[in-house]
């Protein structure tokens, strides 16, 4: 009989204990705590998916909330009940009579974000480093302006509220597992290695036969898909969606998670996402009671500065903890 490798047993333990946690959490915690756990999960999806774009292939993208907004709005429009659609939105005929279940709506949202990434990736990914960061920032602003002004579909700056509260912890958990699984599979495949190689030295990567431009576009689109899904989950968790939710501040938060965790490390993105979103959420009631807003942000910035000074490659560097990886030699 073939023995199951140790690291695979760990995967199983993690997935199972996560499921047990979700089960217990749903039956014991109140709505408020549950919503915090949901947000933590959504941040994990965002950080781990940005890690594909930013960590693996080294594309410094600030456009993640833009993709999230596209996915979020797309999903919201699709799940919005037909009666409300007639009242609030002016949609084209076929769309105004359509209300999809959550899963297909989420998937369509993710695919739309991904397609957008292909379209903007082709011109934008010819840029590098700071120029790419500025261009993706421009993309984020374009998305925000479009959403704000396309009132017939998005209700403009008011946003859409009264969305069905479809997101619960099982949905978020399932997508966290899928995001982790997909990026793990990629990282330890030949394709993932080529992404890391492109990040490290594009010229040498080209010499061994990787397709530079195509790999870059694919990694942007992959990250965008999960950002779109996260956007849909987010919208149906807070049951409202406004253009202001997808701001540069959010982009900054996700980038910080990837950098602190270690560019390219999935475990790092995971840990940093849990750490930072918990800090921000836990400090919110404290901030309110002390009437001193921003303590969470200050603490977050402080951690970032300390990490950059004492551990510039992030908590994990590019690597994963040894017990989770296959022993290849």
């Amino acid at each position, binding site marked *: 009989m073939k023995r199951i490798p140790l690291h695979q047993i760990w995967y199983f333990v993690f997935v199972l204990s996560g499921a047990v946690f979700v089960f217990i959490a749903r039956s014991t915690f109140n709505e408020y705590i549950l919503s915090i756990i949901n947000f933590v999960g959504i941040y994990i999806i965002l950080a781990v998916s940005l890690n594909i774009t930013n960590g693996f292939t080294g594309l410094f993208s600030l456009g993640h909330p833009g993709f999230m907004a596209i996915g979020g709005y797309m999903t919201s429009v699709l799940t919005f009940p037909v009666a409300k659609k007639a009242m609030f939105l002016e949609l084209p005929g076929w769309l105004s009579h359509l209300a999809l279940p959550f899963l297909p709506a989420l998937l369509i949202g993710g695919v739309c974000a991904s397609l957008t990434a292909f379209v903007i990736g082709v011109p934008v990914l010819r840029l590098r480093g700071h120029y790419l960061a500025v261009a993706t920032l421009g993309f984020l602003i374009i998305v925000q302006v479009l959403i704000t002004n396309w009132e017939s579909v998005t209700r403009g700056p008011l946003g859409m509220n009264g969305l069905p509260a479809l997101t619960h912890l099982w949905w978020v958990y399932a997508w966290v597992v899928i995001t982790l699984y997909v990026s793990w599979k990629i990282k330890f495949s030949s394709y993932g*290695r080529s992404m890391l190689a492109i990040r490290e030295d594009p010229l*040498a990567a080209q010499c061994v036969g*990787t397709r530079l431009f195509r790999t870059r576009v694919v990694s942007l689109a992959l990250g965008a898909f999960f950002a779109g899904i996260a956007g849909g989950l987010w919208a149906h968790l807070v049951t409202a969606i406004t253009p202001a939710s997808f701001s540069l501040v959010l982009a900054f938060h996700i980038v910080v998670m990837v950098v602190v965790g270690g560019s390219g490390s999935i475990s790092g993105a995971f840990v940093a996402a849990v750490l930072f979103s918990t800090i921000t959420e836990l400090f919110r009631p404290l901030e309110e009671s002390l009437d001193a807003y921003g303590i969470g942000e200050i603490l977050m910035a402080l951690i970032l500065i300390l990490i950059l000074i004492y551990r510039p490659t992030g908590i994990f560097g*590019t690597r994963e903890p040894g017990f989770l990886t296959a022993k290849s030699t």
Partner: protein
Amino acid sequence: MLKIDDIHVYRGRTHVLKGVSLHVQQGEIVSLIGGNGAGKTTILRTISGLLRPSRGKIFLKTSKTSGETDISRVPAETITGLGVTHCPEGRGIFSQLSVKENLMIGAYLRKDKEGIADDYARVCALFPILGSRSRQTGGSLSGGEQEMLAVGRALMSRPELLTLDEPSLGLGPIIVDNLFSVLAEINRQGVTLLLVEQNAIKALKLSHRTYVLETGRMALSGLSAALIDNEKVKKAYLGGT
């Protein structure tokens, strides 16, 4: 195997190669020497598809091409697939990846798992240090070990023609001797080499034939053994008087 016919290459607005021709026969070691800015690196990068010539043609004939094929307009990843691998100047090690991952990425275009495992064993036999450090990150290796890793990575694509850009750059004399004897061994195993070097004596001693490049044009060419005694070469590149 390789025939370059009167290529002109611009980098930005600078006319770097002004009509260069050369050829490499199967099984040969050919070296390319010349001063700084002569265009040596540009020639190798043009062959490997990283740069495009504005004029001229490059013909390649390997077991993977159908007869003699013009590769002057073919993208880099396709050229690697045709059996020409470029080992870039400054090594281009993927410093965050392990030594083994660095080597495995050299086989990125290959699907034959057994062949890859054979070649991994072969590279580890040529450079034992790489095998013993397979789990270390590429960036933690010394300069000489990184050069070995770069050559080993290039071999993992099982090239028929290997082009090397300044393999001796920044290495101590003993390590260079060691490296060059391995290059000779790689050649004996059937890989054709095209070598760009600033260490002209080493290059002339290792290679069968040598081209001397001067500011974008071929100044001299011939058998290395003959060029080593050539007065002009002695004066310009070998520090002779």
